[in-house]
Structure formats: structure tokens, C-alpha cells
């Protein structure tokens, strides 16, 4: 029963009904405009950001900038030690985070009994994913640098970033394992495969696409991360490269670089942007372009991979 007299008046008047519909449609149009506006803000941010970096950093964007170490002269200063440092730190991060993350994901999804411990670990991982990155820096400062006495080294930085991206890897591993239909598992079990054989030979290969995406997203986050590395004291003026990992004489491989001090791209950029001299803003912008291109490249690989795997595998 409609009691509202205004509404009854409208209901008995076809013109009023048409008007009411028109009004609601106008509202809808208005909201679509609002939606476009919000998305435009996001888009515009990206465009202005990229354009500003490119315009400001353009004079420095050449090979010399990539191949010279930092210097107190803004025109001479380059990012050689920074990108080499980033590369080595990320290498350590991958070596630590990938096996640990995939292992943890497999255990939680395939082995763990559903009890309070699983709940606890789940809450734990959710929280770790949301802990501010600088807290990881404090952890690294207290634990890696002073308790384990690893110093302000590439090893410390790599392990710190590995802990930081671990939740991402674990969560995506679990999600992609969950997406594999039960039939595949049952098929493997029915021909006598053990639990590990089922997982390793059948479930993991199918879910590799999703897991790879998660790893790449984690790496792109690790490349851009600055705060935790500042707290372990990476903001030093480094003009030399770490020792090369491959040598001419026996045993050909050396791990001394793990212990050497380092700087990374985002820290180099932070260093330049926080200097009072305006000339260094150009260096900062140029380093920003390199950093942005790197993370965008890695990120779009992840987006592409996910798109491809979503298309190619259909159960």
C-alpha cells in the first residue's frame, strides 16, 4: 500500500512518471560523469607524473648517465652503482623469497590441517602483508645487521626485501593452487602417486602461471622499495662496484659481493631529490624515469602473463 500522497499523485499522472524517470536517468548520467572524473584523476596523475619526469630528466637520459657512478657534480653523476646494486639485491631477494614463498603456499594450501594454527598463520600473513615496509627495515637493523652481524650488506638488503614480498608470493601461490580442479589431483592419486608427486608433477605445473605472476608482482615491489633499506643504512655515497661474482681463476664464482656495501636506484633517487641544489632535481628525474620504466616493464609482464594464462588454461 502506497501511503505517500506525493507518490500517489505521481503514480496517477503519466507525465509525472515520465518526468520521474527522466530525473533518475539524469542522476545516472551524472554519476557516470563522476565515475569518469575519478578515473581521470588517476589517469592524469600517471600522465603528468611520467611527462614531468621525462621533460625534466631528458637532458641526462643517455648512456653516460647509466654508466657513471654518483658524483658531487650533478652533470657527472650517474646511476651505475645504483642499478648494479638494485640488480644484485633483487637477485638475493628472488633466491630467498621464491622457494620460501612457494613452499609456504604449498604447505598452507595442500598439507595444513584446518585448525587454529592455520587460522593463526593466515592472520599472520595478512598482517605481514600490511605491515609498513619501514618496520621491516627496523627488523633488519636490529636482527640482520646487529644480531646476525651481517652489516649493511647486499645480503641484508636482499633478505629484508625477501621478507617484505613473502606474503605476496604466498598468497598468490595459494590462490593459483586453489584454482586447480580436484579432478587433476584425484587422477594422480588414482594411479598411485603420492601426495608430493601429485603436487610436484601435476598441480604445480598447471598453477605455475599464477605463481609466476605473484613472484613478478613481488619483484616489482622490491625494486621500488626504499624505506627499509634506508634504515639499514644504505644511504651512503658509493662510487665503486661490488666485487664481480664471476672470476677468471679457480673457483670462478665468488660470493664476496654479498657482503659489500651498496646503494639501489630508489635510494639514489631519494638522495638526489632531497638535496637542496636544484641541479640535482634533473638527476633525480632521470633516475625516476629509469626506475619507473623498470617497474612498469616488470609489472606489465605480470599483467600480460596473467592475461595469457587465464586465456590458455580452461578447465
Amino acid at each position, binding site marked *: 500500500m502506497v501511503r505517500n500522497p506525493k507518490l500517489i499523485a505521481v503514480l496517477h499522472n503519466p507525465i509525472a512518471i515520465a518526468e520521474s524517470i527522466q530525473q533518475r536517468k539524469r542522476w545516472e548520467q551524472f554519476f557516470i560523469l563522476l565515475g569518469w572524473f575519478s578515473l581521470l584523476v588517476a589517469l592524469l596523475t600517471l600522465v603528468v607524473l611520467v611527462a614531468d619526469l621525462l621533460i625534466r630528466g631528458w637532458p641526462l637520459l643517455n648512456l653516460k648517465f647509466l654508466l657513471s657512478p654518483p658524483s658531487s657534480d650533478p652533470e657527472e653523476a650517474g646511476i651505475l652503482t645504483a642499478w648494479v646494486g638494485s640488480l644484485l639485491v633483487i637477485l638475493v631477494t628472488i633466491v630467498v623469497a621464491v622457494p620460501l614463498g612457494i613452499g609456504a603456499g604449498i*604447505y598452507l594450501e595442500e598439507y595444513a590441517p584446518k585448525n587454529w594454527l592455520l587460522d593463526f598463520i593466515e592472520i599472520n600473513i*595478512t598482517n605481514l602483508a600490511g605491515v609498513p615496509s619501514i618496520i621491516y*627495515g627496523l627488523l633488519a637493523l636490529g636482527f640482520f645487521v646487529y644480531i646476525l652481524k651481517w652489516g649493511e650488506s647486499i645480503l641484508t638488503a636482499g633478505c629484508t626485501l625477501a621478507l617484505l614480498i613473502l606474503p605476496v608470493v604466498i598468497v598468490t601461490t595459494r590462490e593459483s593452487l586453489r584454482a586447480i580442479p580436484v579432478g587433476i589431483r584425484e587422477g594422480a592419486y588414482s594411479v598411485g602417486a603420492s601426495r608430493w608427486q601429485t603436487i610436484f608433477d601435476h598441480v604445480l605445473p598447471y598453477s605455475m602461471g599464477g605463481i609466476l605472476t605473484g613472484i613478478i608482482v613481488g619483484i616489482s615491489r622490491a625494486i621500488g622499495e626504499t624505506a627499509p633499506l634506508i634504515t639499514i*643504512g644504505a644511504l651512503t655515497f658509493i662510487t665503486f662496484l661490488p666485487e664481480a661474482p664471476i672470476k677468471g681463476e679457480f673457483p670462478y664464482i665468488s660470493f664476496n659481493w654479498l657482503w659489500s656495501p651498496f646503494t639501489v636506484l630508489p635510494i639514489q633517487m631519494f638522495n638526489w631529490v632531497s638535496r637542496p641544489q636544484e641541479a640535482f632535481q634533473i638527476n633525480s628525474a632521470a633516475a625516476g624515469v629509469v626506475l619507473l620504466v623498470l617497474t612498469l616493464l616488470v609489472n606489465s609482464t605480470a599483467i600480460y602473463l596473467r592475461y595469457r594464462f587465464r586465456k590458455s588454461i580452461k578447465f
Partner: protein
Amino acid sequence: MAQDSFSVKTNLPLTLPSRTVRIWRERVIAGVLFLAAISSVLTTLVIVYILFSETVIFFEKVMEVDRVSLWEALVEFFTGTDWSPLIEPLGIGILPLLAGTLTTCFVGLCVAVPLGTIAAIYLSEFAPAKVREILKPILEILAGVPTVVYGYFALLVITPVLQKIILGVQKFLLPGRNEWDYFQLPGFNMLGAGIAVGLMVLPYVCSLVEDALQAVPLELREGSYAMGATRIQTALNVLIPAAISGIAAAYILGFSRAVGETMIVAVAAGLQPKFTFNPFEAAATTTAFIVSVSLGDLPHGSFEYQSIFAAGIMLFFATLFMNVLGYFLSRRYREVY
């Protein structure tokens, strides 16, 4: 004879591992995987241990230097408005840092919450599939921009624009004054940093809200449409109430991320602790303070060294509280349907 021909026909590996070996191999693998899973718990434990042990030393030193009881030191810590642990007399009131953090977060959320929610409703309910397919990766890319780049953006793009806008508005409203009589926005300010924080959190809030909306079952939408509601009426009156716990979780997690944001505020909001809620001023946040101390020489065991852990423990528990709250809220919306 018969057995031999059987083994030739089938090519089965005749040296299968024994049952015991198989069982033990499975157990060892399960054990190794369990250790990997437990590493996350260990990480949390180590974080809590390090933060607590250094904070305890921090308070012991405060008690020793200022000759106060633990209770007085704690009261000073939570209610004092002077944070200057690097110079004597020691100021150990955490409020200036919290004020800085809350102000930048507030500005950030003012940007991220309305824009993120509207964008999410648009993407989830209005956008054609093709538009969605283009826009979602762009949002993802925006979420992947390193925060130090956002810091650069806040300092060298947003702040100069804000300075011009604020000066222009004043000239329009109060014409005919001398140039230096107008309020000048300082180069480091919490407003510009907060806006950058908001732009950084925006894609995150947007995708979480969208997830929450997508989790609402189709029947609710169809029911609403069948009653003659438009899409916007459906979204506002049916979907948002149905997804409210998920949306609340999105806001809380966005807030948690804004609280923990470090590089933007360290670059653009200033590094001096100051007790103010005015976004037009420069003030250090909790995270920026940790960065500014770490930038200098930081000897192990010094008072500065412990002070960053005392600031960090506040940060850790604030975000822990919000993350757990967000976790349970988002789990609730998944369970309802």
C-alpha cells in the same frame, strides 16, 4: 618364465623405492614445507622481539636520564607534545609524530576514499567490459609506481601547483595587498604529501571496494532492477549496504597503508617533528622521523637508535590493529553469501 615376459612387456621401473622410503620422503618434504610456512610466524615474532627489547632500553634510559618512574615516562610518552629525543632535555612525547601521521593520512583519505569508491562503483556496475579491461591494468600500474617517485611528484609537481592555487585564491578574495602579506605555502607541507599519499592509496582502495561489490550475489542486483531501480539506485541502496563490511575493510586497509607510507612524507612533508594538525605546515610523521634519524650516522645502542624503535612500535601496533580488523571484516562479507 611367465614373470620374465611380463616384466619385458610393461617397461615398469622394477627398482621402485620401498614403501618405507616413500613414506619417509613424504614426511621430510612435509616437514620442510611446514618450516617454510612457519617462517612468516617467525618473522612476526622477531619483529615484536626486536621492537620490544629496544623500546624497553629506550624507557630505561629515559628513566635514568630524567630520573622519573616508568609510569611517568609512559605518561610523558603518550601525552607529551614535544618529541626531541636527540637533544637534551629529552622530549619523548609521541604526539607530534602521531599528529603528523594523522594529518597526512586524513588528507590522503579525503582524496582516496571518495574517488576510490566512485571509481569502484563505476568500474563494477557501469563500465562496459572493454573499458574495464583497459582501465584495470592502468590502475594496477598506478599502484606499482615506487613511492619515492610519488614523493618526487609531491615535492616538485603537486606542491608548486598548490602554491600557485593558494596564492591565486587569496589574490582573488583579498585583492590589493603586498605580495608578502599573502600566505605562502611552504615548500615542505603535509597537504601536498597527503594528496600524493591519497593518489597512491586510491588504486588500492578502488580495487578492494570493487572486490567487495563483485562479491554481492547477482540476484540482489536483479531483484533491484526488477523493481524498476536504476543502476545508481541499485548501487547506492542495495549493493553498498550489502557490501558494507567489505567496503569498511577497504577503507581501514587503505588507512593502514597511508599510516605506514614513508617515502612520500619523508621527501615532501618535512623532517622536523612539530605538534600541529594544520596541513599547510611542515611536520614529520612517525615514518619520516625514522627515516630522518636513519639518514645520519646511527651508532648501535645510542639513544637515537632506540628512539626509532620506540616510534616503530607505535606504528606496528597501530597497523596491526587495523589489519586484523580489516581481515575479520573482509572475511565476514565473504561468509555472508
